């Protein structure tokens, strides 16, 4: 297999607080290959966005990377600071956030935003950049792209704005795109359009995509592989079909089973007892042990089960548990 575009090795992020150090990302490792969409799924507080922010060097102090390595196309990037990181962010990593308005400068025409980004990162002339800006808008499916380059962000609808953001994220031809809840603010019909667009662009250009979302349906439809996070740790990682239909981690199983779709025709939904532990109160051993129906004493003691070779970070992975 070719070298991965992004490789995260044993990454931990720590935040010192007045109640002690919390670890929103704890010993996470994964790779993303060129042309692959890796889904990162988890509930709020599971650390899925924090892991993405760590990659692009956008952790808000006092949060910082305390351990581990991040490699982008064979270059180690977790130590990069200031300018070097900014240049890399624009050139090699594109970003798509939940709220398209925050990613666009409201005072600049979108055509100017696109050409500026390209001129900063690509060795091309202004005329060439302007031509490419129109092409980029056409590619993301904006009708009348030649005229729309002169519009301001507020003149677009929510779905169209997210398309512009995707065009902006991709215009410098990055090798990695991090999409953090890109469809959460959008309506179902527009969401389907955006997912289809992301998949097509990723396939055509061989861009690696990290798709962070809480929506299992989006994960199922858009991604190739999926990483399930729980309390800052990786609970399960594998091909999306395997993870969703035959989850091996009891948490993934519970999560899948509690979706209304999986409980179709039943009067009650499957429930995981309790709630995800707060980050300052993660139990010893497996973070899921207090809610897990299969937990034993081994699960309640250190060390923490980690993902090594199998699909799940669990001492007793489930076999043949079909959910859907």
């Amino acid at each position, binding site marked *: 297999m070719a070298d991965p575009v992004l490789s995260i090795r044993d990454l931990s992020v720590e935040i010192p607080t007045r109640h002690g150090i919390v670890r929103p990302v704890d010993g996470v490792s994964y790779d993303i290959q060129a042309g692959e969409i890796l889904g990162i799924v988890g*509930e709020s507080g599971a650390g899925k966005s924090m892991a993405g922010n760590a990659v692009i060097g956008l952790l808000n102090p006092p949060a910082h990377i305390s351990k581990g390595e991040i490699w982008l196309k064979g270059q180690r990037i977790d130590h990069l600071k200031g300018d070097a990181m900014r240049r890399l962010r624009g050139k090699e990593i594109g970003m798509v956030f939940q709220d398209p308005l925050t990613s666009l400068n409201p005072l600049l025409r979108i055509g100017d935003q696109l050409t500026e980004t390209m001129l900063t990162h690509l060795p091309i002339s202004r005329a060439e950049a302007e031509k490419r800006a129109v092409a980029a808008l056409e590619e993301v499916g904006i009708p009348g792209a030649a005229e729309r380059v002169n519009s301001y962000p507020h003149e677009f609808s929510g779905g169209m704005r997210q398309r512009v953001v995707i065009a902006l994220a991709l215009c410098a031809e990055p090798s990695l795109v991090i999409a953090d809840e890109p469809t959460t603010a959008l309506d179902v019909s527009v969401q*389907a359009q955006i997912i289809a667009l992301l998949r097509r662009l990723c396939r055509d250009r061989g861009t690696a995509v990290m798709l962070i979302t*809480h929506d299992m349906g989006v994960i*199922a*439809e858009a991604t190739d592989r999926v990483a399930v996070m729980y309390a800052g740790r990786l609970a399960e990682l594998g091909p999306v079909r395997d993870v969703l239909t035959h989850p091996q981690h009891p948490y993934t199983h519970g*999560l899948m089973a*509690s979706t*209304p779709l999986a409980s179709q025709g039943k009067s009650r939904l*499957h429930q995981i007892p309790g709630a995800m532990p707060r980050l300052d109160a993660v139990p010893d051993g497996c973070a899921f042990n207090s809610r897990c129906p299969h937990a034993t004493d081994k699960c309640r003691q250190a060390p923490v089960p980690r993902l090594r070779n199998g699909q799940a970070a669990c001492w007793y992975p489930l076999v043949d548990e079909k959910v859907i």
Partner: protein
Amino acid sequence: MTLVRVKNLSRVFDVSKPWLNRVIERRSKAFLTAVSEVDFEVEPRSTYALVGESGSGKSTIGKMLVGLLKPSSGTVEIEGIDLANETDAAKIDVIRSDIQMIFQDPYASLNPRWRVRDIIVEPVASRGGTTEGLAEKLLEQVGLSVQDAGKFPHEFSGGQRQRICIARALASEPNLIVCDEPTSALDVSVQAQVLNLMSDLKDDFGLTYVLISHDLTVVRHMADKIGVLYLGRLVEEASPNDLFETPKHPYTQMLLEAAPQMDGFGREVQPPEGEIPDPINPPSGCAFHPRCPIAQDICKGQRPEMRVLNGTRVACHLAE
């Protein structure tokens, strides 16, 4: 007997700019029709779901049901009483305690400066009722502990806060609870807990729910009857099985097709064309016709009437 009867309900918002701006820019007043001629009925002890995308008017209907907004035209009758036009204060008071609402954002729906006990009993206390032990009883019923009564909302997680909201809604022993996206701010596993709780309470207290949601899977799980809204108009109404197995309206079909599916691995759907039109200038005739794959001339010219088709009510000229 029907609990809720909504007749020809419309709501128009004045979204004009201030008078001076209009004069200077020579613009006329602008009106947004959020809800347009909607009819439906809700049977007691059932769950009626309203689904739709943003701008479909589902939340506006919810607010009119509970009396937070007055209808521009048409009526909402609950237990035979029209809250917007009733003049007998005693009757209004009875209806007010019979209707409750659960809101979307559990972080904004509890007053952060109040203790949980005071929040829960407010609907009863404000009418001068006795509240001795009421908060504690309700907290246990929604799966929280008695000690929680003395805490403040910020000490709870989103799911727990939604339980507190449910406890508050139950305090005045209502018949009807309007739930506006009750779980869309919650995680999947917490959503399951809250939905189960709602189902249990419905059986225990004989409640009727009007469930407003954009999430088709939640609606399918919870509802006895589903109304699909598009641009403020009711386009289809059917039982969950009929709606999901044999959707009649082209919009419903599009919506079901576009919704992501848990088993839709690598599904290559043709995503729907276009976006929801501007509700200030809605399309003529059938509001869906610009995006409809089967639209004909009649759809542009004439707004389709609701008609009954194999037990489904559908507003489409061509559905069959």
